[in-house]
C-alpha cells in the first residue's frame, strides 16, 4: 500500500517535471505546442516516431531541444540512396600512418547515453538500412564488432521526404506499423509566431536558440521507470475498454458499425492495418496523455486526442483511395468516433 502511494506521489512529481520539459522545449520551438505534447507522449510511452513535415519547419530544432532537455546526446543520420547499414554502424577513415581504420560510429559510441536518434529522410535509404533500423527500434540493440550494443534509452525519430518520388524507397506497411506515432508538423498558424520566426534573429541561429533550453529538465535515465509506472498506474475502466474495442470494430468493419462516408463505399475501403499492436500503442499513448493531464484513469478524450497520430499511418486503404493521401483515413477515424457511443 505504501509502495503504491509512493509511486503515485512520484508520478505526480514526474508529471510536474514532464510539463517543465515541455515548457523548456517551447522556449526554442515556437507555436508547436501540439507537436511538443505528442513528442512528449511518445518519449514517455517509449515509442518511435515518424515525423511528417515540410522542410524548414523546425524538426531538427525540436529534436535537438528534446535531447538537450532530457540531458542526453543527439545523433543524426541523413538517409541517402547509396547508404548501407555499415555506414550507420562503422566509422571508416585513414589513420595517420595511412592505413584504413574502422571505429564504432557516432551511434554506437553514444549507445548508452542516446535518448534521441534522428533519421532524416528515411525513405531515401534502401530497404537494408530500413531493416537495420527496424531491429534497432524493436530491440533497442544492434550487432557490430562481433558484439551486441544496447541502447537502453533510445527513441528513434524518422522523417520522410514527401516531396520527391525519385530515388526513394517508400516504407512498407510492416515498417510503418513499427512506428508508434506519425506526427504531422507544419509551420505555426498564428501571425505573431510566424513574424517572430521570420524576423527575430534569435530563431535564425539554432545553436544559440538551443542554449535557451535548460539541459536535463527531465533525466532521460528515469524514462524507462516512469514509462513502466505510467502504464501500471493509469487505469482503464471496463466502459473505456469496451469503447476502444468498439472503435476498433468501427475501423476494421466500418459498415457493420454504422460508419459511412459520403461518396465512399466503406465496406471495401479498408485493406489492412489497425493491428492489435496498433491498439496497444493507442492505449499506451492514451495513458501517457491521461498522466500528463493529471489523471490516473483513462477517459475517451485521451483516446481521441492521440487516435489519428497513432492509428492513421497503420490503416491501409484500397489503392484507389490511397492515391488521395491520408485524408480518407482521417475522415474514417472521425466518422468512427462520431458513430461510436460512449460510455
Amino acid at each position, binding site marked *: 500500500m505504501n509502495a503504491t502511494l509512493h509511486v503515485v506521489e512520484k508520478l505526480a512529481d514526474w508529471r510536474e517535471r514532464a510539463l517543465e520539459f515541455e515548457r523548456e522545449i517551447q522556449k526554442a520551438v515556437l507555436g508547436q505546442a501540439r507537436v511538443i505534447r505528442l513528442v512528449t507522449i511518445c518519449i514517455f510511452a517509449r515509442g518511435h516516431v515518424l515525423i511528417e513535415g515540410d522542410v524548414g519547419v523546425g524538426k531538427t530544432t525540436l529534436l535537438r531541444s528534446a535531447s538537450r532537455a532530457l540531458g542526453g546526446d543527439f545523433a543524426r543520420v541523413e538517409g541517402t540512396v547509396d547508404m548501407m547499414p555499415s555506414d550507420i554502424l562503422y566509422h571508416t577513415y585513414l589513420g595517420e600512418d595511412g592505413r584504413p581504420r574502422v571505429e564504432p560510429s557516432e551511434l554506437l559510441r553514444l549507445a548508452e547515453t542516446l535518448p534521441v536518434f534522428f533519421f532524416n529522410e528515411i525513405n531515401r535509404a534502401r530497404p537494408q538500412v530500413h531493416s537495420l533500423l527496424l531491429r534497432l527500434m524493436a530491440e533497442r540493440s544492434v550487432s557490430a564488432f562481433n558484439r551486441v550494443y544496447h541502447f537502453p534509452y533510445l527513441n528513434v525519430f524518422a522523417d520522410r521526404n514527401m516531396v520527391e518520388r525519385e530515388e526513394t524507397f517508400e516504407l512498407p506497411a510492416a515498417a510503418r506499423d513499427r512506428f508508434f506515432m506519425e506526427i504531422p508538423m507544419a509551420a505555426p498558424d498564428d501571425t505573431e509566431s510566424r513574424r517572430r520566426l521570420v524576423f527575430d534573429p534569435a530563431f535564425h541561429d539554432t545553436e544559440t536558440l538551443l542554449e535557451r533550453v535548460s539541459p536535463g529538465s527531465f533525466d532521460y535515465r528515469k524514462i524507462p521507470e516512469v514509462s513502466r509506472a505510467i502504464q501500471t498506474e493509469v*487505469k*482503464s*475502466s471496463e*466502459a*473505456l475498454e469496451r469503447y476502444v474495442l468498439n472503435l476498433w470494430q468501427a475501423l476494421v468493419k466500418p459498415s457493420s458499425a454504422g460508419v459511412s462516408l459520403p461518396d465512399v463505399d466503406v465496406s471495401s475501403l479498408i485493406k489492412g492495418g489497425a493491428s492489435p499492436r496498433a491498439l496497444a500503442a493507442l492505449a499506451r499513448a492514451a495513458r501517457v496523455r491521461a498522466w500528463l493531464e493529471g*489523471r490516473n*484513469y*483513462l*477517459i*475517451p*478524450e485521451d483516446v*481521441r486526442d492521440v487516435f489519428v497520430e497513432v492509428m492513421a499511418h497503420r490503416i491501409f486503404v484500397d489503392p484507389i483511395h490511397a492515391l488521395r493521401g491520408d485524408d480518407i483515413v482521417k475522415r474514417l477515424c472521425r466518422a468512427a*468516433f*462520431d*458513430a*461510436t*457511443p*460512449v*460510455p
Partner: protein
Amino acid sequence: MRIACLALALIATLPASAQEPTVRVHSARPFGYFVGDLIHARIDVSAPENAALSRASLPKPGALTGSLDLRDVKFREVSENGARIWRLALTYQNFYVALDAREIEIPGFDLAISTAEGTETVKVPAWRVGVSPLREVAPQKQDDPVDYMRPDGSTPFVDEATPRHLAVAAGVAALLAFALVARDRAWPPFQRRKPRVFSALANEFSTRGAGSDGSELDAAIQSVHRALDTANGATLLSADLSGFLHRRPEFQPLRMDFERFFSASKRCFFGDERLSDDFRAEQLAQFVNALARRERSG
C-alpha cells in the same frame, strides 16, 4: 356506298353452274375519269366451298400499261350459301391524258384456283372505262376582278371552355406533383420538426424514475448520453461541449449543469469512484427536465 354494284360485266368462264367459278367485276362508274383519277373496282370470284385461291396469282401493284397503274390490292375471303367468295378491292390510277372522251381498257388477269379435281385458271376479263379531257372553265363575266376569287372561308368557332378546363386540370396536377416532391424531400412546410429527445427522456424519467442507486442510475446516465449524442448528431464528449453549445445556443444557460453531468459521468464510468452525493438521481432528473425545457424553447 358509292359503288352501286354496277355490274360492268358478268363473265362466266364456264357454263353457269353452282359448282363452277364465276367472276363479277363491279365499278363505281364506267365513265367520267380524268387524268390522275383513281378508279376503284371490286371483283368477286365465287367458287365451290372446297376451292382455294393461290395468293401468288393475285395481281401485284405497279404499272400495268404506259398510262395505267395498279395502286392497291385488298383481298378478303367469305363463305356464302355454301360457296366460297373471294373479294378483291382494286385501285387503279389513270394517267391517260385524253384529248377527247373515249374508253380505255383495264387489262384482265388470271387467278389460279385449286379444287379437289385439280388446279384451274380463272380469267378475270379486261373491262373498259370512259375517260374525259380536262377543259378550262369559262367563268361568268365580272366587273370587279376580285369577284373572280372565291370568298374567304368563315372563321371557325372555337370553344374556349375546354382548353381552359384542361389548363386548370394540368395546373392542379402540377401543383399536386410539386407537393408530392416537396413532401418527399421534406421541403417546407413538410419538414419534420426536430425530434424532442430530451422531452421524451424527461417523460420516461417521470414515469419510471431516473433509477435509484447502482446500475439503474448508470443506465439512466447512459440514456442521457445517448440523447445528447442524438441532439449533437454524433457522439458528444465533454471536450466537444463548447462546439455543441455554439451550435445549439438554446442550451447555453445550462453550461454549468452540462459540466457537472460530464464530470460525474466521467468519474462514474471511467474513474474508480461511485457517484458522489452532489449528483444523484434527483439531480439527473432535474438536468433532463431543464434540457427538455430549453429544447422546447429552441
